[in-house]
């Protein structure tokens, strides 16, 4: 029993990181109907910005995190401006292929800059281990969870309560109508990329802290898994991405603990196949019928 609880705790830490990445996928999908395959690489870029901020400049962890988030949002906005915006009226498949191209570009650019070998992430927070009735909990796990939840609450507040958040929702539901109400949809889309990229970067820094290792291809697998998490929760639905992320993290850890760690990466894709067969709109997705 303690064993299962222990694994669930580990799963929640991992899941909160998937959730952070999944949010960016789901927001961009919601607004552009684009699966932004470069999103996992933004996560990687965020991790590297955090690496330099914490390691080379010796900044405190919180400041390094914020710099990584700001840096990644700038990268996200640049990508949107130069790779996706010129294709606004092009068929969606062109956009998708471009996203894959941007993904390769970011990975290889990073190899060019820092080299392909893994680097160990600056351990700016020393590990403390707590033992609560046989459950092992580290301060890093708690920090990861707290930061993730804080960011999700902040995001939910921005999307539900602020003017730009409401504009985001309006644009995602009907772009033309949003235009007619005077909403500059280009800036709303840029803002969405900035927001999603910032969350991915936070995920990247937290992964660096948790797994202590970063490299230019580190975004590929978490990116795919976060995509599955977004689909699992219902793509385009923000609480769905959070839910999907946590479920995926817990499932992955449970399988690797009790079945076999060799199938750990397969779990996400088995879940994807099942959800597409059973409930393609995702756990929180629903079809809205049109009124005549």
């Amino acid at each position, binding site marked *: 029993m303690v064993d299962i609880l222990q694994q669930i705790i580990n799963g929640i830490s991992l899941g909160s990181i998937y959730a952070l990445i999944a949010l960016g996928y789901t927001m961009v999908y919601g607004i552009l109907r684009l699966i932004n395959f470069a999103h996992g690489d933004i996560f990687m870029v965020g991790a590297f910005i955090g690496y330099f901020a914490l390691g080379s400049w010796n900044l405190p962890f919180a400041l390094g995190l914020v710099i990584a988030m700001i840096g990644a949002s700038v990268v996200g906005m640049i990508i949107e401006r130069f790779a996706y915006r010129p294709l606004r009226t092009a068929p969606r498949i062109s956009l998708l292929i471009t996203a894959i191209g941007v993904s390769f570009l970011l990975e290889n650019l990073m190899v060019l800059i820092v080299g392909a070998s893994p680097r160990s992430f600056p351990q700016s927070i020393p590990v403390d281990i707590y033992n609560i009735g046989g459950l092992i909990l580290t301060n890093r796990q708690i920090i990861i969870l707290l930061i993730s939840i804080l960011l999700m609450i902040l995001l939910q507040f921005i999307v539900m309560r602020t003017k730009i958040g*409401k504009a985001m*929702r309006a644009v995602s539901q009907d772009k033309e109508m949003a235009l007619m109400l*005077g909403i500059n*949809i280009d800036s709303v889309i840029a803002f969405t990329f900035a927001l999603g990229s910032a969350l991915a970067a936070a995920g990247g820094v937290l992964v660096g802290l948790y797994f202590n290792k970063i490299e230019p291809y580190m975004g590929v697998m978490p990116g795919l898994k976060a995509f599955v998490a977004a689909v699992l929760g219902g793509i385009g639905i923000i609480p769905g991405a959070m839910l999907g992320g946590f479920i995926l993290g817990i499932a992955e850890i449970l399988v690797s603990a009790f079945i076999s760690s060799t199938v750990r990466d397969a779990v996400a894709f088995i879940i994807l196949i099942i959800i597409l067969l059973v409930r393609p709109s995702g756990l929180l997705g629903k079809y809205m019928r049109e009124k005549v």
Partner: protein
Amino acid sequence: MLSIKDLHVYYGGIKALQGINLDVKEGEVVALIGANGAGKTTTLRSIFRLTPIVKGDIYFYEINLTKLPSYKIASLGIAHVPEGRRVFPNMTVKENLEMGAYLVKDKKVIEKNLEFVYNLFPRLKERQKQLAGTLSGGEQQMLAIGRALMSNARLLLLDEPSMGLAPLLVQEIFSVLKKINEEKITLLLVEQNANMAFSIAHRVYVMETGKIVLSGPTEEIANNEAVKKAYLGG
């Protein structure tokens, strides 16, 4: 106020509009009637630059709208109640109305407009927390009109506000449109329901296959034999 001059819109090889000329003066209700596919909706959408304009100009006072990006047009005081209402289904009634006031900076003005809309359509106030997608068709139409009014617009473009509604609701919507016009808001109304359109319009334009074929004061158009036959059921 609004002046469309020799407007041509082509969709690929299809000539949707072939030289439209149309004027709307301040305070008027102008109706644009015609059969399906005549180009009424295209005309309205062109004002917001949502169509491929090949030739021609659209002036709002002295400003040439064809030179502006779509999102700048609302700020001039033009609002659109589009075909099919196009409310934001996953936002609440109140949020939909707030989006209508997106360009209004002054919170007090927004409050005042909200009150004005709730006065016109008390039903919207009752349902302000409900998601717009769960409203009935008539309520969605009220919401679309309310949203347009939130922006302090001086000119309202309405695309088939009667479509798909029960006759009683159509009466209700049109009596509200009349009230709105009494508040010095100008209306350009596209309608298939010519009878209803004539009941509030000062002037009428008749469209056929991308051209204006007839225009004049409502009484004159309503008594035209061809119009009677084609649009008023004999």
